[in-house]
């Protein structure tokens, strides 16, 4: 085992945490390798944040063990804190302080690391250096939060939903920044409920649901695991009631069919064969097609195929 353990930046075994009557984390095992960006995926309430906060030493688990950078919270909390960069979900930094003042404060807690100005440059906030935090946009606030996580020059970075609530442009900007840090050899544990974020940033992902890990692998492996490269969705409008679903399942190249609120979703391996066959079948059933779309399978589809639910049922 020692050979394997030397390469694990974070190892979690048998983790369990219950709040009153809800089991937030249920017998979870995780391993994050040094130097990788590991994604923890799942819908809201899956137990991602609880897991991360236990790893960050902010929450004490009911049972289970956490080994982080070869250290334990029980005995080496102080050294660990110096080595971690943490970004919590929706922390509101003091609005009355400027960007520079905020970073100077956070820098003062660490023995080493980039200075406030350097950290500002890292997240490209130079223009906002002397602006109050209260006047920053959502994306700028998230970048400042990231800078606060980086002032200690951490070996391990925790990012809890770093782009939630941001517009697409701000998200892409933050992704670019995170990719830069990845290339500098840090280990990152990222939680998100955006599948595209995980696909773009993470080497490996674990999908969590109801406090348990339900899938683990690289994004490519997970998508391959549902054995369907494409998804076809169509709407039959008013006639959807009379649709003969079993007949659709028999079309060659179709792996699964599910119908939800008038929209039918099909997992398909060979798109070029399945689509003409589908159109022919609908004509035979005398059902008019009101909408048809196809896309390549994503982690979202993996989650749907594993749980029967969408990630964000809003």
């Amino acid at each position: 085992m020692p050979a394997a353990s030397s390469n694990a930046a974070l190892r979690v075994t048998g983790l369990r945490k219950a709040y009153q009557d809800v089991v937030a984390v249920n017998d979870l095992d995780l391993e994050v390798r040094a130097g990788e960006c590991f994604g923890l995926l799942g819908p809201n309430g899956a137990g991602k944040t609880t897991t991360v906060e236990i790893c960050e030493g902010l929450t004490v688990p009911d049972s289970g063990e956490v080994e982080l950078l070869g250290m334990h919270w029980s005995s080496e909390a102080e050294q660990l804190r110096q080595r971690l960069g943490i970004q919590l979900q929706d922390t509101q930094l003091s609005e009355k302080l400027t960007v520079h003042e905020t970073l100077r404060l956070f820098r003062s807690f660490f023995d080493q690391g980039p200075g406030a100005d350097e950290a500002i440059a890292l997240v490209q906030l130079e223009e906002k250096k002397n602006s109050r935090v209260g006047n920053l946009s959502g994306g700028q606030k998230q970048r400042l939060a990231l800078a606060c996580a980086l002032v200690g020059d951490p070996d391990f970075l925790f990012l809890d939903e770093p782009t939630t609530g941001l517009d697409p442009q701000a998200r892409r900007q933050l992704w670019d920044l995170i990719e830069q840090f990845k290339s500098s050899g840090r280990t990152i544990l990222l939680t998100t409920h955006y599948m595209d974020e995980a696909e773009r940033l993470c080497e490996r992902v674990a999908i969590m649901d109801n406090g348990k890990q339900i899938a683990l692998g690289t994004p490519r492996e997970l998508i391959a695991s549902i054995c369907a490269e494409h998804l076809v969705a169509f709407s039959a409008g008013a006639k959807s009631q009379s649709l003969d679903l079993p007949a659709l399942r028999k079309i060659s190249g179709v792996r699964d069919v599910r119908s939800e609120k008038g929209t039918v979703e099909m997992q398909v391996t060979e798109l070029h064969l399945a689509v003409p066959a589908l159109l022919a079948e609908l004509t035979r059933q005398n059902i008019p097609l009101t909408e048809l779309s196809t896309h390549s399978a994503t982690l979202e589809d993996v989650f749907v195929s594993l749980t029967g639910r969408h990630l964000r049922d809003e």
Partner: protein
Amino acid sequence: MSETTAIPEIRARAAEKKSPRGKTFAEHALVQLTIVRFLETLREPEALFWIFAFPILLAAGLGLAFRNKPAEVLKIAATSRAITQSLQREKLLAVQQMDSHDAEEALRTGKIALLAVPGENGAVTYRYDDTNPEGRTARMLADRAVQQAAGRVDPVHASDEILREPGSRYIDFLIPGLIGMNLMGSAIWGMGFTVVDARRKKLLKRLVATPMPKPYFLLAYLLSRILMLVLEVGIVLGFGAWIFHVPVRGSLLSLAAVCLIGSLAFSALGLLLASRARTIEAASGLMNAVMLPMWIASGVFFSAQRFPDVVQPIIKALPLTAAIDALRANMLQGANLVQLGPQMGVLAVWMIVSFVLALKLFRWR
């Protein structure tokens, strides 16, 4: 992956006792926390109003309302020119000469306190209401003036020394009370709201996720209070001394000591009140419930002695009573630190008990 530092190496590096290399004073965590705390207060316009402008407005308003008026001049009248002239010798009387009809009318309606009417052979009759104190006073003053005008020489020479000295007026009583009230209000509100707000915004949790030593956070609050203290006490005291000539008879050093221990005691109490609340509403209810009895009972606006003897021991044990008593004793009677011992003791006990309890109960998230 080949560039990645192996975990055992990271572990070894972390275990090395790093000396925080070349951190300047300003880069120290406690200094930074204190500066930030101080800046946050200064950038809160509402807080500045309550801390600085409000006590001054209150002092100005109450000082004007309760200012000592010069001794009152009594209005009287006489029906003859000679008597009027004699009476004008007396500065505390305002004499008018009237005809007897008007004079009777003025006396009956209370416009004058006394009417002097000439009798036969230079005699004088004073007409006044002897149940009215003004009338009796006017009688004495008027008679003295008339007798002296007629040549009476007093056998004993008497002279007056007027005592209208600063230190015994209402404003002198009020200013130490306001300083005490301000110490309490700004410390408890300043602590309570900001701590609860930081908890609500999960800022406390974020700070705990850094290597920040937790006691530094609480200590920084107390230190920034001391910085504010110099300003808030200085302004009210300066205002009282400059506008109303309120005296500071004790040493400034012991006054500073009283303010310091008072502010720390209230800050610790504020920290205790804010140690668990998750919402501003819960905290502000708790803070008001604690402060209201003290505003009433601790002698800010009137002497706490007015309450029944039974409750006096309780009132004396309140931190605001101790702070105000000590401030008054220092400013008005010039008491030194030894004489202020009991009050300082009460404040110290409040400070220590509250701080220890707050540390035990404090919720960081």
